[in-house]
């Protein structure tokens, strides 16, 4: 696995310009939130954040894809995979036809996976240490530990919701390669997905003192026709808030999933 990824990383490294002087002194450390007006991409990576959903979230509707490659803004699904995704989308807001199997893991308080842990979370804190970068989101108290000490990935048998991440620094840009994903977490609310063979390469770049750019390139030949890339921005949390508790599982006994399970198994699940 590691060996076959080397060419990809090499290409990226060659394509990436040396850290421009303008980024000197900039850092990805600190507490960040979604940039206002950006695609709240947890809903649909391809089409954005529709008005109906924006109303629920008390946010602005955004009709824009975060997919920057391919240029048409569409995820290059293989035909069978597109059919699966569209099937999920068709029932995602139909609370009568929705089953546990077709319900977004976010509604079940499951870990978000990569890159959705970043695209789908409000507040993110990142701290750089000698051998690692820690990342935590207030939303469902998720964390990632991204080792930058050159250690190999885990054995391929160890599959994880948030995968296994290894980082390298290119100037102030953190480049993260994630493998070992279990493929359970969807990429957005309408059912876009990758498999447990996916590799995700993220580039986290400070643009100025209060903005970072984030790209994620997803490679998975079992689901897509080609690698594809999404891009979004985070802005520094002006209040630099502490991370407080967001206990999701513990409070989820009255949510949508509880209703679905009651229908499926004839009783309240918890």
């Amino acid at each position, binding site marked *: 696995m590691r060996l076959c990824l080397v060419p990809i990383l090499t290409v990226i490294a060659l394509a990436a310009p040396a850290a421009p002087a303008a980024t000197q002194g900039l850092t990805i450390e600190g507490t960040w939130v979604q940039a206002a007006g950006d695609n709240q991409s947890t809903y649909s990576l391809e089409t954005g954040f529709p008005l109906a959903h924006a109303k629920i979230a008390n946010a602005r509707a955004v009709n824009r894809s975060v997919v920057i490659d391919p240029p048409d803004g569409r995820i290059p699904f293989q035909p069978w995979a597109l059919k699966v995704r569209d099937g999920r989308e068709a029932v995602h807001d139909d609370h009568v036809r929705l089953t546990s199997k077709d319900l977004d893991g976010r509604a079940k308080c499951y870990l978000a996976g990569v890159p959705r842990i970043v695209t789908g979370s409000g507040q993110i804190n990142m701290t750089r*240490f000698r051998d690692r970068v820690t990342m935590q989101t207030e939303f469902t108290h998720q964390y990632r530990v991204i080792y930058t000490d050159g250690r190999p990935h885990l054995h391929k048998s*160890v599959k994880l*919701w948030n995968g296994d991440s290894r980082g390298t620094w290119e100037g102030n840009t953190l480049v993260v390669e994630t493998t070992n994903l279990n493929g359970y977490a969807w990429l957005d609310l309408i059912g876009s997905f990758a498999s447990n063979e996916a590799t995700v390469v993220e580039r986290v770049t400070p643009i100025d003192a209060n903005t970072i750019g984030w790209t994620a390139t997803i490679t998975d030949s079992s689901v897509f026709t080609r690698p594809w890339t999404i891009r979004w921005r985070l802005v520094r949390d002006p209040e630099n808030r502490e991370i407080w508790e967001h*206990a999701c*599982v513990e409070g989820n006994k009255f949510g949508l999933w509880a209703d679905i399970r009651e229908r499926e198994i004839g009783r309240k699940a918890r």
Partner: protein
Amino acid sequence: MRAQWMPAVAAAMGTAAIAAMVLGSLDAAGQAAASAQPRTVPRAAYGKPDFSGIWQVMNTANWNILPHAASKDGPAGMGVVEGGELPYQPWAVQKRDENYKNRLTADTDARCFLPGVPRIMYEPFPIQISQTPAVVSMFFEYEHAVRNVYMNTPHPPGPIEWWMGDSRGTWDGDTLVVDVIHLNDETWFDRAGNHHSEQLHVRERYTLLDADHMSYEARIEDPKVFTRPWQMNMVFYRHTEPNLQLLEYECYTFDDETVGNLAPPKK
């Protein structure tokens, strides 16, 4: 599992016993000389002990914090509570007994819920500590729990009932002191049903004994449940396996996984 723990436990206890005997035999001058020796503990650039690393207890407190024999519930243990008894108010003993009867369904371990503080510290899973002057962060493999111990800052005003409470840290010399309040009354101290109320107040003391051992003390105060404060003590051991890292224990996803609801679609 139990058999594998024994040699290490015995070795650790042996070392501690020998150290206690040696220290006990020193006169006052000897003690002063011993304490003047800098302990070989890792230190952060800002001079304080560096707790960074992956730690785990080697005890059975998660099954029962009091001394207990082995049972179908789990392995035996000498207990972690000073004096081996809990000063319950009479009503709270009844509640404990009721909890014990319902333990296989009512405990947070059975419900896959966050287990609270101090219990998260002795769940039998690794803990990764990262430290800056402003915050000591603890990541737990168990249900991806997180504690952020913000240093030298006040608790937010309550009332708040968080599963993991609100933790604020200060330094007492080389000891990290953590004050924890704003907890709820739904978590227990162990699987045996030892419990507390939302008035629980935990004062923790973290002290490095050497590079790979850390003393953990938790003073427990809860005027609604106990007649007096009490304390638990234990040792954390550093994981020294090369490249060891936290994995995931997403307890509440296992049912969904078992019935096939999570399997990615195939061609």
